[in-house]
């Protein structure tokens, strides 16, 4: 009698354990791990992941995050054996390049029809869908301006005034996407001839061309330079942290770039990837983007994160994205010839 009880217990325990492991593994298997490549800001990673996973409990996001240039280079290098399932939050110009290289799985997400037209790739089905737009604005340090009695600029033309000599930093368009969209924006607004003439004059006032789009506004925020031409969101967050800067949208208009979502061709998790693409263009997601960016894809979202310049969206230059991509090498070569080669000896 006693023996059988023990035996029964052992068998029961074994069965329970087996069932438990079986259950656990099936629960494991249900969770699809999506590898998502991104260049969104660090502080956005957790909120984005949590918000998506709350609505899609069977999918888990594993981020690979770095700066736009690094992530873009990495994706192209991995082309023959892609490791990413989805791109969520990378410059649309990069994603457009991937699409032209056949690296993208075309898919029109569920919520795409509700978005502003310029936030879509224009292909059917879409190769990418935009999330938010960022601008190359002027960050102006008011404390340093008071010290040097410098007037606040309101236009690009103002920046060529001699009083700003050696006090402007901007990204080098050869090393930074933000730098290129700034230059392309000028050439679009002013036309090629006037655009280059403007940059010739601006060059006299530029202290340094930096290798990142965030750095100029950060340097202006820390008083390292009076004026930084760069990425708006970075300027706004620095101001929120207590930096004495004003974000200025020059009245002539300005260059911009958007962040986009796309599915990688060859992903082994296509269904889950589509769910993420759907979610990324939903109203809920756009409301989330609106917490960080003033200009988002869904027209129903009226957002104004703290310390953003108010009139940015109206002044966005009518940039032809295809023209930007096609003329990139020519413009960079010309820019490098004019400003990069000769800038070396006079390090200021």
């Amino acid at each position: 009698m006693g023996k059988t009880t023990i035996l029964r217990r052992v068998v029961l325990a074994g069965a329970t354990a087996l069932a438990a492991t079986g259950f656990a593994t099936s629960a494991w298997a249900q969770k699809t791990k999506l590898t998502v490549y991104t260049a969104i800001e660090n502080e956005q990673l957790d909120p984005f992941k949590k918000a998506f996973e709350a609505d899609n409990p069977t999918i888990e996001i594993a981020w690979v995050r770095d700066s736009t240039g690094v992530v873009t280079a990495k994706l192209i290098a991995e082309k023959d054996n892609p490791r990413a399932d989805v791109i969520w939050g990378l410059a649309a110009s990069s994603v457009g390049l991937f699409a032209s290289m056949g690296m993208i799985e075309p898919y029109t997400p569920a919520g795409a029809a509700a978005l502003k037209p310029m936030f879509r790739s224009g292909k059917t089905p879409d190769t990418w869908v935009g999330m938010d737009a960022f601008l190359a604005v002027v960050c102006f340090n008011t404390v340093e301006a008071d010290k040097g009695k410098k007037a606040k600029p309101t236009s690009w033309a103002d920046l060529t005034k001699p009083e700003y000599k050696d006090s402007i930093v901007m990204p080098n368009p050869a090393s930074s996407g933000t730098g290129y969209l700034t230059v392309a924006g000028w050439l679009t607004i002013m036309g090629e001839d006037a655009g280059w003439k403007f940059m010739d004059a601006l060059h006299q006032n530029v202290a340094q061309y930096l290798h990142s789009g965030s750095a100029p506004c950060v340097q202006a925020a820390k008083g390292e330079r009076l004026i930084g031409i760069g990425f708006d969101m970075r300027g706004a967050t620095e101001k929120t942290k207590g930096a004495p800067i004003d974000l200025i949208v020059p009245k002539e208009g300005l260059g911009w770039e958007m962040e986009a979502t796309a599915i990688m061709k060859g992903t082994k998790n296509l269904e889950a990837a589509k769910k993420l693409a759907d979610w990324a263009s939903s109203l809920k997601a756009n409301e989330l983007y609106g917490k960080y960016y003033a200009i988002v894809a869904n027209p129903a979202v009226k957002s104004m994160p703290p310390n953003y310049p108010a009139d940015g969206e109206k002044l966005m230059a009518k940039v032809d994205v295809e023209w930007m991509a096609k003329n990139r090498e020519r413009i960079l070569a010309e820019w490098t010839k004019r400003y990069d080669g000769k800038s070396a000896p006079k390090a200021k």
Partner: protein
Amino acid sequence: MSLAAPTPKTVLRISLSRDDLLMRVGLVALVGVLLLIVALPLWALLAKGFEDRDGRYVGLANYISYFSTPALFNSALNSFHVAAVCTVIVVPMSFLYAYALTRTVLPGKWLFQGISLIPIFAPSLLPGLALVYLFGNQGFFKGLIGGSIYGFDGIVIAQVFYCFPHATMIMVTALATADARLYEAADALGASKIRVFFTVTLPGAKYGLISAALVVFTLVITDFGIAKVIGGNFNVLATDVYKQVIGQQNFSMGAVVGMVLLAPAALAFLVDRLVQRKQVALLTARAVPLIPKPKFGRDLFFTAFCTLVSAGILAILGMAAWGSLIKYWPYNLSLTLANYEFANFDANGWESYFNSLRMAAGTAIIGTALMFVGAWLNEKTRGFGVIRGIVQLLAFLPMAVPGIVLGLGYIFFFNAPNNPLNFLYATIGILVINTVAHFYTVGHLTATTALKQIHPEFESVSASLKVPIWKTFGRVTAPICLPAILDIAIYLFVNAMTTVSSVIFLYAPDTKLASVAAVNIEEAGTTAAAAALCLVIVITSAAVKALHLLADRFLLGRLQAWRRR
């Protein structure tokens, strides 16, 4: 006719060739490993220099278009200029410092030794940040330097700080083993101190001096991190690679500049071949280790010199430490510990720090074994000159390769769908392998320098006693070289903690490293948190080094006792 009795000649050949065969097989295996971790990944990227953007073969078209750009000449000239200036400053400085550590009676020697290593513990971001705090447009001492810190001056100061320990480490190894009998003889012959210095000390350290110069020169030429933070508009070849690869995703042009950057390595290789031929072993079995005796004037001078150098290093570190505690520089200088809450600045928080620890430990263990055994095989194998030359060349390559080029090469090579090793991709394993490859040169040079100082008579004696060569390795060579072996392990550990440019392309979601996180945090504008993370890395490496010094004192004391009279 006795078939069973072999001629004495045959016996001799068999007993000789078993060791020789073993070592030759080992050497061939080493070449295989180096091809896999250095040459093939490198070629995977450099081959793109002969293709256009769509992958069509275009011959030398990219080279022609690159060499016809005036900007290239400018960057190459700048690179050469800044590297030459840094070499001229760092090599004598590290020689004097190493001389003080090994040949004089220095009060608090262990402290000076520790301080000299601090720069190697720090990510290259740190000197850049500290220099901005010190001499930037809002810096505390901006009046002290005539112009702006951004540009040539800034690069030189930061590079000197960054390269100093690399050169010092080689110089200490070169100066640590000296035969006191040579000095006694010189003394007895009445040679002047200057004559002794030029006829005994310098020739003994020649290999170390040249290695140090080559290392500093190529480190400066290939480093991008410092030029990025503090370089201003001073264009160098390494920034050209960055612009092509990261800025424009133009791998073909990046490969062309990468190839141009290999020129210094080729030069280093040739110089090394020339010097090697003339190098003689210093440490024979009869050698008597040199124990420095107190000498007031000399010791005072070197104490002052070391104090000055150490003060400079500590000023840069101290500024970074203070900066890491500041709330919002320069407008709110009140202090806070909030910058050490890394989860607020990077989604991985402290996790990336523990990844770094695991990666660094793996690199130290695997890398040291490979580099030391490799250098030993290369030094002690008889004949086989071609293969040994190939090993030497492959060992020199990584130093001259910018991290960006190596990292991308790793993607192309290890991520290829038909590479049986592609299971390694996106694991911590690939980070370890990449870091071992990236820092192969200095480890190899250190091991070679140490091995060269052991006279081959040890092997000859063992061979005549019919002791297998691997026993001599285990019982004689490795114990003699234990200080150098530990130095290599520590060198690999601390560099693995700070490396960025190559691994930035290779980490996966769960293997992000602290050094990469620091760069990301700095790019997001949170300078103080970046300084804080750099400091945590410095403290970790310093702690590991402290353990090493303790081990040196108590454990090695026994093994190295024979060096003392």
